[in-house]
């Protein structure tokens, strides 16, 4: 455990958590609408992966705020997007599920379960022939691991030895469906292990996540083909704001809360004496400030203009060519 790294992990996880708690509040107030999927409980995955996979292309699904923050997107631009504002990362047209930032090689924000996996795989193909070995990181849920798009992707990535990390966040549920009802096994790395190196890790421990992705990254960078990681994790909240998550027992939720990635990192760091209490206080204060600013920024930002409805269907050049 390296002090600087632990600090970074803590700060980003805390920022993610508070950002989402704020989003939840704003949703209740009616400032955010549509589907809002919270990552609360899963921050070790979002932060650990993005800290390790710091170059290369990232493809993700709709439960993505913390991933986007950990990738370097500005919280205020994300919050503004949730508010549907012109200053949002997708100009208010995408909302919570569709955060895109090509400048950070961060490509959404896909709300079709497993739909981003063939895209990520194709991107990995391109990177391979372009000779860019940083490769691709594709993250998805347990539910996605039953979709044809998932299977085609691991088959192709393996056949063509593509530089891509498949990372499944196994939080056991796809909305209200437990993975054990719809998959022959709950340990999902079994789906990939005939195709590529595959392992299961503790997704509630940010250091373990970080180390696993570092290892995977080395593998793909060395041209050894794809790599598969399954992280056990848990969302404390319902699937989205429209789901109370009542299908899970209080005990089950409690078990995972005891493994809380943020609290446990802090405890361990204090115990080991690598980070002092003061840092955590400062970090928390900074988080509060950043989150508050993000909400203020979002609240005070303008709505998109009416004419924007018709923009961005095509690129400008095409729009001009069209009759």
């Amino acid at each position, binding site marked *: 455990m390296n002090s600087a790294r632990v600090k970074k992990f803590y700060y980003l996880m805390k920022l993610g958590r508070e950002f989402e708690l704020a989003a939840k509040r704003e949703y209740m107030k009616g400032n955010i609408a549509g589907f809002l999927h919270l990552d609360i409980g899963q921050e070790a995955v979002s932060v650990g992966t993005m800290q390790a996979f710091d170059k290369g292309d990232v493809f993700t699904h709709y439960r993505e705020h913390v991933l986007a923050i950990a990738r370097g997107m500005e919280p205020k631009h994300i919050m503004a997007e949730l508010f549907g504002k012109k200053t949002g990362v997708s100009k*208010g047209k995408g909302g919570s599920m569709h955060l895109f930032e090509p400048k950070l090689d961060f490509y959404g924000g896909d709300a079709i379960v*497993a739909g981003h996996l063939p895209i990520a795989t194709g991107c990995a193909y391109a990177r391979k022939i372009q000779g860019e070995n940083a490769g691709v990181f594709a993250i998805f849920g347990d539910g996605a691991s039953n979709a044809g798009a998932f299977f085609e992707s691991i088959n192709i990535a393996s056949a063509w030895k593509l530089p891509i990390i498949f990372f499944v966040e196994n939080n056991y549920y796809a909305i209200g469906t437990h993975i054990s009802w719809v998959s022959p096994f709950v340990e999902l790395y079994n789906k990939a292990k005939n195709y590529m190196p595959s392992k299961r890790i503790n997704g509630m421990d940010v250091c373990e996540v970080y180390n696993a992705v570092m290892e995977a990254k080395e593998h793909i960078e060395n041209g050894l083909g794809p790599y598969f990681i399954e992280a056990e994790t848990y969302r404390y909240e319902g699937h989205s704001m429209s789901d109370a998550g009542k299908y899970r027992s209080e005990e089950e939720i409690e078990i995972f809360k005891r493994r809380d990635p943020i609290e446990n990192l802090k405890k361990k760091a204090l115990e080991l004496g690598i980070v002092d209490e003061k840092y955590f206080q400062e970090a928390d204060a900074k988080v509060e400030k950043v989150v508050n600013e993000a909400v203020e920024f979002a609240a005070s930002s303008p709505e*998109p203009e009416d004419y924007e409805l018709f923009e961005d269907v095509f690129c400008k050049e095409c729009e001009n060519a069209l009759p």
Partner: protein
Amino acid sequence: MLYREALNKAIDESMAADESVVILGEDVGRYGGSYRVSEGLFSKYGEKRVIDTPIAELSIVGNAIGMAIAGLRPIAEIMTVNFSLLAMDQIINHAAKFRYMSGGKMTIPLTIRMPGGVSRQLAAQHSENYETLYSSIPGLIVLAASNATYAYYGLKSAIFLNDPVVFLEHELLYPMEMEFKELKNFDPFKAEIVKEGKDLTIITYLKMRYDVLEAEKELRKAGIDVEIIDLNSLRPLDIETIANSIKKTKKCVIVEEDHKTGGMGAEIVAQIQEKCFYDLDAPVLRIAGEDVPIPYNRKLELLSIPTPDKIVKKILKWKAENGI
């Protein structure tokens, strides 16, 4: 009765009446359906007949076709119409064609339910009306339930028809309290004359029915006596009812939530002009969604689809322009 309760009642009674009726889809079982349509059925009929599936739409429909071949009457629920694109090959290349390409030997009694439409800020991948993707396909029946009565009777008909039916529902209707009418005779393919009138025919379906009803109040104030037709069935289309109305009113407006280009309105206009060319006083007006993916922002979202206010304004403008 809530709209979703009418659907639930139709499924429940069908399952009670006929053992071969089963329902499958994502979260339809223990969870009760993401819009609560299948609530209570899992505990009543058990996991064999109320089947929680993986997120694999191609298989949901494909599996259902196989069940139908084996003699069951499956109801496949696609969580929303947006995901049905993944099942398109099974719906179009298989369900719709098996009977024909087997020279009538295969029978596919299959119902595919799909909630759809522009709900509230669900953005481009969750806000579609793909009805013409299905209503253009020979071998499919496409029904669209705008109200509790049709939801109940229409869905029951779909379940017991021996051919594949795509059954469209609208997400905003589920929690709506609606009047339920007991019917003696029911024809799922017949359009409903929601309101009679003599000046102008408005054709609509699904959620737009309610926007049209709102608009009608304003139009009435402007002295226009509107006849409103709710299609109910998108394939086949009840062109008789439409044509009879137009013969009377000489003027027609179609209101649909789907994108205008290639929407249901196009086919309706085409059939109208085939049947009623010499009756029309003015071009048929299509009031439809804009030709853009649906944006998240609420203001833009509302700009992208018809609203009562826009319906009124567009009709008045069209009347003025055509001097009618």
